[in-house]
């Protein structure tokens, strides 16, 4: 049986696409919004995983067979709170970055760039690159 319909799949897909796009930006704030949006998409997907709409799973209010699947709701609720918590944290990180650096953009790693710029080994094992020719000749024997 089909539990996830096309329109909802489209909404989920669009949320992921927008989220992924924002995730790939340099501003930490946009990255954060991307994460929030993907989180929304994931929670919606989780809820949809439970099956088609139905009555709220409250015993007494509805017959059991008409109820929606309660487990994904519980899981999604947990996930929502977790996403919220991490969002807050990342927001604080962005704020601190702004305070320290004057911007909240994600910079490239300095050390990585340093390695990438190096054309040749900075002195292989042991200052080999600057070994005197005589010494090499001696070692050639």
């Amino acid at each position, binding site marked *: 049986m089909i*539990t*996830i319909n096309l329109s909802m799949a489209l909404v989920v897909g669009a949320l*992921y696409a927008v*989220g992924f796009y924002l*995730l790939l930006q340099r501003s*930490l704030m946009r*990255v954060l919004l991307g*994460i929030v949006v*993907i*989180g929304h998409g*994931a*929670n919606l*997907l*989780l809820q*949809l*995983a*439970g099956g088609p709409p139905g009555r709220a799973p409250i015993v007494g209010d509805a017959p059991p067979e008409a109820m929606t699947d309660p*487990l*994904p709701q519980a*899981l999604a609720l*947990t*996930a929502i709170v*977790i996403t919220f*918590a*991490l969002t807050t*944290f*990342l927001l604080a*990180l962005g704020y*601190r*970055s702004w305070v*320290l*650096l004057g911007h909240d953009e*994600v*910079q490239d*790693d*300095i*050390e*990585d760039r340093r*390695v990438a710029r*190096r054309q040749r080994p*900075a002195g292989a*094992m*042991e200052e080999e690159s600057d070994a005197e020719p005589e010494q090499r000749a001696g070692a050639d024997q």
Partner: protein
Amino acid sequence: MSTLVTLPVLLPMLGAGLTVITSRSATLQRLIGIAVLIAVAVLAAVLLVAADRTGPIVAEMGGWAAPVGIALVADRLAALLLLVSTLVTLAVLVYSIDQRVADYGRETPSTTFHPMYLLLCTGVSLAYLTGDLFTLFVAFEIMLSASYVLITRRTSASRIRSGMTYVTVSLTSSLLFLTMVALVYAATGTVNLADLAAQVGELPDGLRTVLALLVVVVFGIKAAVVPLHFWLPDSYPNAPSPVTALFAGLLTKVGLYALLRTQTLVFPQDGSKTLLLWLAVATMVVGALGALAQNDLNRLLSFLLVSHIGYMLFGIAVFDVAGIAGTVLYIVHHITVQATLFLVSGLITRRTGTVSIDRMGGLAKTAPALAVLFAVPALTLAGIPPTSGFVAKLALLQAGAGSGVATAAVAGVVVASSLLTLYAMARVWVRVFWGTPQPPLSDPDPTDELVVGTGSTPRPMVAAAGSLAAVSVAIAVAAGPLSAVTGRAAEDLLDRGPYRTAVLGEEAR
């Protein structure tokens, strides 16, 4: 007995709650932290013995049998990893307390450190013990969010970038994890791992492959498998050394553990073997080459960490009793040794005032104790006999050699990257411990204000790092019983029967 299974999770959590409340008292915080971890270590040892004798021990949370309730399962694998991890967390905690005392005196409390540290341990314990996919997600979140706080604590301008990289990549992987959970539930209607073992088997092959590969990617990010590893060398080295030691020792291993658990229990089909082999090769080679390109001691160690993840992945790829047993043994060894190396690196940078190996020298003369303390884990990591690294590597090589030409060829890559590891270590030795002694840089390294050379190595810190090195030695000495346990653990994992029966009852067979 089943209550004991819950305590490794709940005790650190309780400890965290209490350390938040007692955050004004340094002594109380430290006492709580150490007491909790000692208790967990003892518990883990008891669980290991019990699980080895009687099979997996299950705690049904709330008294609800799985899959209604959440089951915590201590089987040989989980109990073993729990024990080793706790020994490492304990040693690292003592080290960082010593460091704090050395830097700021006995009275200064570290408000957020202790709760976060204990919660990280909670997350790790829960990840090992849980028999539920969603709880695994929660466990990862506890562990990771605590790690976010630890890695960004007091970040400075030059370090905040690495914190962002770490947090963002981890959050991305968490969201992919959540997506995976949703898809798995949508397909099967359960999140209990033992239940999933049966349900996933009934899915169409193609769909099962999609889910299995998604799992590989999700846990591959956490485990830093090439090409999903980039974040690790950019972030770990920039944390304070005890934190790096903890992360390097534990967090990637938890990712590997999750991969191992799901690959064996839920997706035991052969489809991803070739893929995993290739990933293992790439991880070993790229990590080892990365290490050779570095001048920063911590980055060098981080790349080596990546390289050795490849070893463990190799064992999973081989996917027979020998391979899985080799991976488990390697995880046990590697958790210990990698943490030790980062602790020692912390001592070295503390003494020299720099992380750049080009600016160090002559430490063998000025700090011979440090030289010995570095040499032991360095040789262990390089797999020089008779250390634990050799034993674990041997187990993997045997698995590779006994499982066909392709895996034997990858065993050759294991050997080659082992040589590169030794080369990297020899280079550190030559640059840092040999040569002419350099005075400690008293003015802060311009690139890195967290490293200030004090020229001293406080004895308690050395003792903490040394005790971890001793654990590493003990693993080598006890290789006999240990390899027997890992062998039995691997049989359990591939059999799946004992685990499923323990969680779901007899009818699951």
